[in-house]
């Protein structure tokens, strides 16, 4: 090791993955250690120490974390209080008048802030920003004291129309900060100055809910790194796929809600792009779910918001990930009408598939793979057994599927995979077709432990030409941490028709976003290859509620934003609207709802060729043979040590390529080639993809 090293750390539910990149030599290494609970910092440091003794040699540590996601899903955030406009105490509890499921009318909802910790104060701003009732600061102080005395660790100020005029919120926050015992005081106009009170209040309250937990966790990590001599930048991956400094993460923890999965998609986009596939659909198969994401022209899609759970809406730009309940642990069952179903119930990783021998007796997708010989029973990846219990998996498939459908064990296992594959293919079709993309144009990239078992099926079901299996599919998220650019997103509601648009005021907002974003970039010690600023307006015709994202071609020269003209805004809208709907509305009035800005610092990328295998032969990589079932017959199938295969090696199916945490299946009729970066490109034998 000669140069400084950059480290990416992804903490997952079971394993903590660490990706080490030597910036001098461009070489990389990976480490996988068990995740520690409840404090994940143990595994985090242990993973780093596998390769590095002296933390002062590190140039950066970038972290993809599930601390925020878990705190939200398990409802383990802080006790927080809310101070809100008189008459609006229940917005968080009333949501947008939705319900958990369309059919059945069952289920209730507990907001993260109980009603007795939501206090009203006299104040009111109107939609045009006019202050109708100035905030009553005595009432704010009294409410704050009551919340503090009730044991709240954080307080969020949520006032009506604060996006249009933040003055009342700002004065309330100032009064609170004067006596609040910690830094956890936030206002909705600071977190999300955007119209729509439930979404803004929810995002702000969830941010406050996470603040004590996540900032505590990150502070502990930061301190431990510094104690070990670390003196460089510690950064966190955001849900938008960009990274932010640890200080920003402590202030805006809600932006980490999809940190880990986002990092995975970033790495997938980079690996696929470098391999010559700028259009790729990723599929991350875990124990309970299959997560699909689409990358077109090298860019991943961003969704404006997501619901972490029913009623828990986070509105910040996030990499769009579509999840269906078809993972390795999803349970196969036959309903009373005789139809085979997969999921939504899952055995997860505990108790896990039947073959894991942990007291589950209902068959899962993984059990079908085991019974058909596709997973090596002698080297289990999860579970606690030395050898998977194949007989138990067979019995479960017989009892719950085979006997009910009149199928043999093997036919029942094939049926389970066919239905599961069909559902996964449906998710791929949906994410592509819904956005007007033809999936056949895309490559499919499986990652996570189980995805590569199903790659061939996706080619057959969706008609995709090729799959690309990255060299280290199990550590994709950790690698993504090292690759991701630095990115800050901003939003400001404008709410004006184009004819009445105050372009100077718009330019002032844009300038403020650029200035703030640039300050945040410069506060880090990271080197950027380039900088980029993106502006977008959410626009619609007056009367429409769905807006169209309108890219605004505005140049930033020496940090100064040039004000766009009304004509330019109108033209940009027409172009975007026509592209989305194929027609314009000549008599319609165009309205600008929100300004969205992104300030991006491009970080240097490393050469994936450094991960490629050096030397080796196909013969030396051959580990033996196993009987594997495909279609309607058993095939004697060659087994290879995947990492030992040389560049340009071509393996015709049926074959299985094995590595520590992944099984790559090459079905009969398919062929796998090792590309110059060590990825495996799977295509049909007859075609070239």
């Amino acid at each position: 090791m000669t140069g400084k090293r950059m480290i990416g750390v992804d903490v997952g539910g079971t394993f903590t993955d660490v990706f080490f990149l030597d910036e001098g030599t461009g070489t990389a290494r990976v480490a996988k250690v068990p995740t520690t609970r409840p404090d994940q910092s143990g595994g985090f440091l242990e993973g780093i120490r596998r390769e590095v003794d002296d933390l002062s040699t590190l140039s950066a540590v970038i972290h993809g974390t599930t601390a925020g996601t878990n705190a939200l899903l398990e409802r383990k955030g802080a006790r927080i209080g809310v101070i809100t406009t008189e008459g609006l105490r229940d917005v968080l509890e009333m949501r947008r008048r939705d319900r958990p499921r369309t059919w059945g009318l069952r289920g209730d909802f507990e907001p993260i802030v109980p009603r007795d910790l939501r206090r009203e104060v006299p104040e009111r701003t109107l939609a045009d920003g006019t202050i109708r009732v100035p905030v009553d600061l005595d009432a704010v102080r009294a409410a704050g004291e009551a919340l503090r005395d009730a044991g709240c660790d954080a307080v969020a100020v949520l006032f009506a129309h604060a996006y249009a005029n933040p003055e009342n919120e700002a004065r309330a926050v100032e009064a609170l900060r004067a006596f609040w015992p910690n830094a956890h005081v936030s206002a909705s106009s600071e977190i999300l100055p955007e119209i729509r009170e439930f979404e803004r209040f929810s995002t702000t309250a969830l941010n406050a809910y996470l603040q004590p937990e996540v900032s505590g966790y990150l502070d502990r990590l930061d301190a431990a790194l510094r104690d070990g001599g670390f003196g460089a930048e510690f950064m966190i991956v955001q849900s938008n796929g960009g990274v932010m400094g640890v200080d920003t993460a402590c202030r805006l923890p809600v932006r980490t809600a999809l940190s880990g999965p986002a990092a995975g998609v970033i790495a997938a986009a980079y690996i696929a792009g470098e391999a010559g596939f700028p259009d790729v659909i990723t599929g991350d198969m875990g124990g309970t779910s299959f997560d699909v994401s689409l990358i077109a022209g090298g860019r991943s899609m961003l969704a404006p918001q997501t619901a972490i759970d029913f009623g828990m809406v986070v509105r910040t730009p996030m990499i769009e990930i579509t999840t269906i309940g078809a993972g390795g642990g999803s349970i196969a069952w036959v309903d009373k009408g005789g139809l085979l179903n997969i999921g939504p119930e899952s055995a997860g990783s505990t108790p896990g598939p039947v073959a894991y021998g942990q007291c589950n007796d209902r068959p899962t997708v993984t059990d079908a793979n085991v019974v058909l010989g596709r997973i090596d029973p002698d080297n289990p990846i999860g579970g606690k057994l030395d050898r998977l219990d194949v007989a138990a998996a067979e019995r479960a498939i017989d009892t719950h599927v085979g006997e009910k459908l009149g199928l043999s064990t093997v036919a029942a296992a094939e049926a389970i995979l066919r239905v599961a594959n069909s559902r996964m293919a449906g998710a791929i079709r949906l994410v592509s077709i819904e956005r007007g993309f033809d999936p056949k144009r895309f490559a499919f990239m499986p990652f996570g432990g189980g995805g590569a078992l199903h790659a061939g099926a996706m080619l057959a079901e969706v008609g995709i030409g090729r799959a690309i299996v990255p060299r280290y599919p199990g550590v994709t998220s950790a690698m993504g941490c090292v690759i991701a650019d630095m990115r800050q997103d901003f939003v400001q509601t404008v709410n004006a028709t184009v004819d009445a648009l105050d372009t100077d005021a718009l330019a002032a907002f844009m300038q403020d976003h650029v200035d703030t974003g640039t300050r945040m970039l410069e506060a880090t010690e990271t080197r950027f290859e380039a900088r980029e600023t993106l502006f977008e307006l959410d626009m619609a015709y007056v009367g429409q509620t769905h807006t169209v994202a309108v890219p605004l071609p505005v140049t930033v020269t020496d940090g100064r934003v040039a004000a766009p003209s009304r004509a330019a805004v109108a033209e940009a809208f027409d172009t975007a609207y026509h592209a989305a709907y194929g027609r314009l509305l000549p008599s319609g009035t165009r309205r600008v709802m929100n300004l969205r800005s992104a300030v991006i610092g491009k970080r240097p990328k490393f050469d994936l060729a450094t991960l490629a295998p050096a030397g080796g032969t196909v013969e030396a990589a051959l580990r033996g043979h196993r009987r594997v079932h495909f279609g309607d017959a058993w095939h004697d199938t060659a087994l290879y040590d995947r990492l030992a295969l040389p560049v340009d090696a071509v393996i015709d199916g049926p074959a299985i390529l094995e590595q520590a945490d992944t099984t790559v299946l090459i079905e009969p009729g398919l062929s796998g080639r090792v590309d110059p970066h060590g990825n495996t490109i799977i295509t049909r034998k007859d075609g070239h993809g």
Partner: protein
Amino acid sequence: MNDTPPPAEIDPITLAVLAGRMEQIADEMDATLFRSAFNPIIAEAHDASHGLYHAETGDTLVQGKSGLPIFVGVMSFAVRAVIDKLAETGETPQDGDIWIFNDAHLGGTHLNDMRLVRPCFRDGELFCWLASVGHWHDLGGGAPGNYNPAAKDAFQEAFVLPPVKLARAGEIDRGILDILLRNTRLPQSAEGDLNGQLGALDLGIRRMDALLDEYGAGTVAAALDALSARAETLMREELKALPDGRWEAEDFLDNDGITDEALPIRVALEIAGDRMTLDFAGTAPRCQGPVNIALPTAVATAYVAIKHVFPMLPANAGVMRPIDVKIPEGSLLSAEFPAPVGGYTETILRMIDVIFAAAAQAAPDRVVANAYGTINALSIAGRRRDGTPWVMFSFYGGGHGGSAESDGLNHGSAPISTATIPPMEILEAAYPVMFRHWALRPGSGGAGAHRGGLGAIYEIEVLEEMGAEVFLFGERGKHPPKGIAGGGDAATNRFSFETDDGWARPPMVSKMRGIQLRQGQAVRLETPGGGGYGPAADRDPAAIARDVARGLLTADEAERLYGWTEGRA
């Protein structure tokens, strides 16, 4: 699917795969319309639906998951209306033909719902029908948006279009389009919605073509038959698991908006082995005002109620085969043209309530208590100082019923809908109003071991100096949502408005028409909660204490309803 003899048995795996593929086609049609629609009732509230229907009978084969629940049962009537029309005129459908109509007496629901029906051909033979329905913003009539609480016939509600051919072999008939766009206050919105529906049908045809290319018409037809048979089997299995017997329930509509007289809705639910009968004998006769419904609506509503009780059942016609729905002739549940039906939502919500109340006697754990039971369609309209007119129209929520598992949901959407409410800030930004309250309504849920969810309080002040006029179409002003299994009733709907002499309440209790507000005056909706589940005496004392601490129940109410005296002298 009439000519191709299906294979005797389709393999179960192909069946499972095809089930998913066809559901996806319907879902994609939904998504296409939601994205491209111009009016928020479709775009935001998803008041639309799409599906595949049987070539000869019009029975539902497959329906999208994201459309409005009430349409799941009602759309096959729209297809049947077109099939009947063809039989009557002796026409045969051609590829690329599209029929359009809004006649609620033929197609169910109300006149705002514009239905498009298009044949899907394979090898020159009719394979199935595709249909699209969407709630258009305005179709003329006596009140903007067509919720006219005093309409005495269909003509006062909206322009009525019977099934006519909008497109012949792919060619749109410009004359039909002109008639449509001349009969709405919002032609731009109507044209946008129509284009969205046409786009959804185009997409459905393309997807069906690809599916039929891939699997062959015989296999797909066999799968559709098998799915319908399977749904029937599932329903019969569910019914067998319930006890045999006969249970009755009755409830009331406040009035028809014209005469303040209660209108009974009655049902007798009978289970015998694997069959169920729902007999609505004893229900009020056809009334003068717009709370009548057409027969298709009544049958479809039975389906909605059944699917809420058995949520895992698929959305196809097989489910209803073991169920006999008896709607008495001459009742307000089978009103003939031109009886007004604009307020159909209120009547079908009450039908669902009585079906739940009857089913709860048979199997209390399978049912939830009554939800708030009214759509609360509120329209505030006026002119700005510069003369431009404005209309703020939306539906307002209430509580869901308690169940064996939990308290009811606070502030949910109506059982016939999944529509979300627009944000208060969006409403205030678009219209000259200010919400003084947008809050839960304490004490409005029915008492019970699991109490009902809470309704809401919305108090809306007019900021416009020209004032405004208020229309409000609701129900449950006199007869509260009921509890089940010993649970208590919820609070009733309560409307009031400010006058120069203080607060007043409307003469029709739950309906308002032409109420004038000045600048600075407000209208106030206090919506019902849901009914309670199980006896109040069985409620966990900690849950009572929690409700009191949170201000959802006063200590006095806690003592009166639950005998709770903790911390009191």
